[in-house]
């Protein structure tokens, strides 16, 4: 096991910058997730650690060693590929044993390791099968088995669950979590699925356009996104963004937009004080909105008067798409509230969990 460190790693493909001076430290036995949209550079970052790509600039450390220029086989890593990349002409036993055989491990030790791995992953009865005779979930287990049998310093996962159906994905996610709990091997995991990122990672790196936007624990990313991209990418349904401006009046600070005028709580006014008139983007998550039946005095300082466009009842919740001052707002509400399309509804924001972003830089202000 080892710490993995990326220092100013840049990877160019011709004129295209896939990874832009990435700095990332994965502590020993930590499980971190790289998440971002397609083409954001997360897989390229992983491949730089694997040695399948050579960084154009910067250093990759595994343990204390700079591994730039070291071929993948000498980095003591194991990788699980998106399409599993099982050797089609070898049975499961040999797929798992292949890396051990190449490392000239004694035969009885190979056998013991393969058996132990197969036992751990529940594929013992499939050792004689060829990959094409296996289901998607079993192939996935073989691919993971091939990685853990070698007992490497670092596991690299490249979207390993994206070829599975939804139900199996949830199950395998839990199994991977348990596996990491048992093995405690340093792991890097690439996914575009924010749910995988939130559930699996000790820490999550959100990447966009080759740049690491934020690298923090999942809850911190959710509660304190560092910019508008992270705020919009993490969370489902996505955070609402409304054009607004700062207004100071009578010692209070408000954020004001078409159809709303919200009083900011004292504890978060510091960063915006004295910036009256500044154009900002106001953000609030759909789950931080509620619809009250009765409106009390003073409530107008934390509410939106909206007109409902569409409702999506999901059983355990209802997603309401509404309009406020010409901008769309989505709320995730208690399913038992009585809301119909084309109805006017007052939505209340939990002002402890609102976000304000600079309109130009899109960096978080509050």
């Amino acid at each position: 096991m080892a710490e993995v460190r990326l220092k100013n790693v840049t990877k160019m493909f011709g004129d295209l910058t896939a990874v832009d001076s990435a700095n990332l430290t994965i502590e020993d036995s930590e499980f971190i997730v790289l998440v971002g949209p397609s083409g954001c550079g997360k897989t390229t970052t992983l491949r730089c650690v694997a040695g399948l790509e050579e960084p154009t600039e910067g250093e990759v450390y595994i343990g204390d060693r700079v591994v730039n220029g070291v071929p993948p086989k000498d980095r003591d890593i194991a990788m699980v590929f998106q399409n599993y990349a099982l050797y089609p002409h070898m049975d499961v036993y040999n797929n798992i044993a292949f890396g051990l055989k190449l490392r000239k491990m004694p035969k009885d030790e190979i056998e013991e390791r393969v058996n132990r791995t197969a036992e751990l992953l529940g594929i013992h009865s499939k050792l004689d099968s060829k990959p094409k005779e296996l289901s998607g979930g079993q192939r996935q287990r073989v691919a993971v088995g091939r990685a853990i049998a070698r007992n490497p310093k670092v596991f690299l996962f490249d979207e390993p669950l994206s070829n599975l159906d939804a139900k199996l994905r949830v199950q395998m996610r839990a199994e991977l979590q348990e596996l990491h709990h048992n093995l405690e091997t340093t792991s890097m995991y690439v996914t575009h699925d924010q749910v995988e990122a939130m559930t699996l990672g000790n820490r999550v790196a959100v990447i966009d356009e080759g740049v690491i936007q934020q690298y923090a624990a999942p809850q911190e990313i959710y509660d304190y996104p560092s910019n508008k991209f992270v705020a919009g990418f993490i969370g489902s349904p996505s955070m609402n963004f409304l054009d607004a401006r700062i207004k100071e009046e009578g010692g209070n600070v408000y954020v004001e937009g078409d159809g709303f005028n919200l009083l900011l709580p004292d504890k978060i006014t510091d960063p915006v004080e004295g910036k009256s008139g500044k154009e900002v983007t106001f953000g609030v998550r759909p789950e931080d909105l509620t619809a009250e039946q009765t409106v009390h005095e003073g409530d107008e300082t934390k509410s939106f008067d909206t007109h409902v466009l569409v409702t999506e009842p999901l059983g355990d919740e209802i997603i309401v798409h509404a309009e406020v001052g010409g901008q769309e707002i989505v709320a995730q509400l208690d399913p038992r509230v009585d809301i119909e399309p084309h109805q006017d509804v007052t939505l209340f924001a939990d002002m402890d969990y609102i976000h304000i972003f600079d309109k130009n830089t899109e960096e978080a202000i509050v």
Partner: protein
Amino acid sequence: MYHLIQEASGWSPGANWDSLQAREARLAWGLVSPTALVVFGLIIFPAFFSGWISFHDVSLRNLSSIFSAPFVGLENYHEVVSDWAFKFHSWRSWGAAITSVVYSVVSTALTILVGLVAALLLNRKFKARGLVRATFLFPYVAPIVSVAFVWRWILDPQKSGVLNDILLRLGAIQDPQAYLSTRGLALILVIAFTAWRYFPFAMLMILARLQAIDGALYESASVDGATSWQKFRYITIPELRYVLGAVFMLRLIWTFNKFDDIFLLTGGGYGTNVLPILTYQFSFRSFDFGKGAATAMILLGILLVFLGLYVGFFVRRGEAA
């Protein structure tokens, strides 16, 4: 065939002559018959007729009254087998059947080896790859007569022959050599010519398969610790197994049947006499059609064995898949 058409059209003899099914059935017969006639006239009838001739003494004398030619039983076969086709006279002189087998097996193996190396080279990315690929196809697409004569010109026994000229100038030889009329060397040259001419076919098939191999397999092997040779040995070769087998069997059958390549280079002389050329020599040099037909039948017999192996190979593959 009748049965098939009947089944396809749902027509039965009791149905109305003018019914839709009957008209469709007549159309089907009409569409099939030109091909059927050509196949029967040019393939099936000559094959059976050759079989008949091989048991009779047919020569120029009685060609006009061929059906009264005397029946000689297995005599033609006996003479061909004992004198010409199979006999191993000495290391310097083999029967045509042995030459045929040596020629086709060795040249096919060489074809595949060269094709494999070429495919592996052309599978890499480099500048002007398309141009190089097209150039490599040249031996296969150029007319056989022209390329055979280019080879003969290079190997010409006179001082003006290209190879002789070069070697003489280099001082490697004192006198011009007759390469294509040297026993042993002639067979090697014919094998080299065949491998050179047909490697692009093997190359194309292998290249197509190479490009279909999932690149992640190689990456996975890199991570697992494989060297370039081990990747070739444990991934490329197993992935190419079926295409190599199929190309080998196909080329073996085609090469075994080949007449023109050898005939144009050596005319079948100097230890390069193979069964197709022997057939030609019996029939159209000595006009002993009976022996010619018997030789052709022997050729057919060996081809059927190869064909059986080929079909068996694909049946096994079908079961494995």
